[in-house]
């Protein structure tokens, strides 16, 4: 059995390795599929659904769906761009996102995704939820207002830090990131050096006293849209 798998994304032939997800194979080939909960060192999770593609005509999350020989994947279509805009807008109205004064602004994947997808203002009504801020820890801030429930921190704390500081509690609209203590992060063994703090796509999990360090114009997504690093690979390959 050959380990190379050939399939197409938007008509372009791509070689991947057996066992890869559509997203992984696309990344290697320099094709960007938008995503928010997927993160390179973490196991696939499939929560945000921003990476939704059509695989052999059926909607699938690219971050969890394995590639198969001859698979026909649609990614950059009008239909899927609309679905992704809808989902990102849902995330914006679900929480309380005030990008203009947020520490993460310019480095925020949610904000960058909105720009890349051409969202100016959400068409959905803001849900204005009442959410908490946990500033109990001396070095770490948790602002649930900005959390998009991607589970990156949950996975990173468990799999990279070996700690289980975070886990979801509650169901449905009451779901939120809980900490391994009665209430406060300060009562857990969370530490400022934890990898879990590096993975939050938004400004929900922040190190204290290091905000606004990078001036506007030099932040991660100020000059190039999110996903450019992956697309640059393709440009390189084509040369």
């Amino acid at each position, binding site marked *: 059995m050959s380990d190379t798998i050939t399939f197409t994304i938007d008509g372009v032939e791509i070689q991947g390795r057996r066992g890869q997800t559509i997203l992984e194979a696309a990344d290697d080939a320099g094709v960007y599929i938008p995503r928010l909960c997927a993160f390179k060192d973490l196991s696939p999770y499939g929560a945000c659904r921003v990476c939704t593609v059509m695989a052999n005509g059926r909607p699938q999350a690219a971050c969890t769906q394995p590639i198969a020989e001859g698979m026909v994947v649609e990614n950059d279509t009008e239909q899927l761009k609309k679905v992704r805009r809808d989902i990102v807008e849902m995330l914006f109205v679900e929480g309380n996102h005030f990008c203009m004064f947020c520490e993460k602004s310019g480095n925020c994947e949610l904000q960058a995704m909105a720009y890349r997808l051409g969202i100016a203002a959400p068409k959905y009504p803001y849900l204005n939820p009442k959410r908490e801020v946990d500033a109990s820890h001396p070095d770490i801030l948790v602002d649930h207002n900005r959390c998009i429930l991607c589970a990156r921190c949950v996975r990173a704390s468990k799999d990279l830090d070996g700690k289980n500081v975070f886990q979801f509690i509650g169901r449905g609209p009451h779901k939120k990131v809980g900490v*391994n203590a009665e209430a406060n992060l300060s009562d857990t063994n969370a530490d400022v050096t934890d990898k879990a703090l590096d993975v939050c796509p938004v400004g929900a999990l922040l190190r204290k006293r290091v905000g606004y360090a990078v001036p506007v114009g030099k932040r991660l997504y100020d000059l190039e849209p999110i996903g450019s690093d992956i697309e640059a690979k393709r440009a390189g390959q084509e040369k």
Partner: protein
Amino acid sequence: MSETVEATVKQICQACGNDRTRMMDIVRAVQEKFGCVSDAAMDAIARTVSTHRVEVESVVSFYTFLSKKPKGQVVIRVCNDIIDRMHDVGRVAQAFSDALGIGFGETTKDGKISLEFTPCIGMCDQAPAAMVNDVVVTGLSSDSAWSIVRGLQEHMDPNKLVEHFGDGNNSHELVRAMVSNNIRKAGPVVLAPLAAGDALKKAVSMTPAEVIREVKTARLRGRGGAGFPTGMKWEFTRGAGGDKRYVVCNADEGEPGTFKDRVILTECPDLMFEGMTIAGHAIGGDTGIVYLRGEYAYLRPFLEHVLNERRAQGLLGKNVCGKQGFDFDIRIQMGAGAYVCGEETALLSSCEGLRGDPKNRPPFPAQKGYLGRPTTVNNVETFCCVARILEKGSGWFAELGSKGSPGTKLLSVSGDCKTPGVLEVPFGITLREVLKVCGAEDAIAVQVGGPSGVMVGPADYGRTICYDDLATGGSIMVFGPKRNHLKTVSIFLDFFIEEGCGYCTPCRVGNVLMKERVDRILDGKGEPADLDYLQQLAETVKLASRCGLGQTSPNCVLSTLKNFRSDYEALVKKPTDGMQPAFDIRAALGAAEAVVGRKSAHFGA
């Protein structure tokens, strides 16, 4: 006090082998003992079974029947699903509230009785209904609500509330429920007698491959809703390798308006267990698990008794039916109030002691299911069909029903009809015939397949119940002339909002947004553009959601937009002044006006 918590929790954990994957049993037992799973209890559980406290809280906070805050010694859960509302549950709820002197979601000052609402408890044919701890009370009125409360205040024993028992096994000494079966039409496959062991003996005389072939030849498809061919599922499970495989029976029956599995569990448990045992032989498994919804806990002692009888008869245990090397036993796993746990991968998560989150697919349960082992998950009724197919032969079975959908189907009919109840009908029956049997000829709409199904009007009553036309797991809800379909949709969406797991964005947020817009329209503040808005939103949720819940929750919106569009159109208004009808400028200015202490200049003093 906390020492007793610690000690008791340790005992409970020990009884479950200090096994983390038995978390559901542990937290259910703790809840029952203390009326809550407190912070101290969660800490103790985590320490005893070597997990993290937040993992325990993650489970406890997922299930409606579990709580961190203390609940009363007795919890009254009033079903406020659509059918109960049609039967004026509001008055019953008010009576409970008045009699107890508390609101819903509250506990009496003495800590004795809590009052809550709960979604469908599978008693729509005898609504309004409620659970008093595990005891089901049906056909409620304001008077009976008052007398239930008076009775409880006197003796605090829910069992004493039941004075008359229902028909059939409802009056069995281990059930003693006031529930009625309401079987309106029996059929040859499920609601027919079986001598325990008859089908199983035939099955064990055949090879597993022959059993699977028999089920395939009968062209049996799953009765739980998705309609997957059962024989094929078993073949995948058997072929998946490994040395341990599981048979799981989905008795979660959470789809509002469905109660046919309740009747099977009450009247034909032998048929179901027999089907599960046959599945064990076919896939090469030695363990069966029945995932029983928390609402049906009142049936558990009876089901355990039937299992014991089967063990005594050699129909379970070692060398089943004398077949050397075929060991198979069945245990019951209780749920704790979560509709999404009926989804097969969420059900497996729950069995594994986790939150009831669905899993990513692939791998499918047939490849990697319960504890990572190949598992077949089938509906209660599917297992009954299997047993009958083995007893009577696939040819006999395939003769019944319609061409594409052989066999019979159990329907649960409720709502505005004279004789709500359970019917076993051949596939291919028209909706009109079903309505006639139940005395619902004046129905203006029928919800087929529960809230996740579709709403159809009289133009569609000639359509047939089968996999290729109107598919249903069994729920048929009838709406008479007085009903407002948009209100129904709004109530359905409430259900999906509260019952979704919250894992994926489209379902978690999209259902809330659909409800916001349906309610806006109901409120007379909608505009014509809202119909397109709803259509597009519903399509996104359907396409992008991660599991069947979100992939079907928009169906109520989409099917009413299609079949009852004029109901929407009658309520929306074209804006005439250039303002959005939903925008109330006076209200919006209110806060600013309050600050400056005068009315806005534009609107005069």
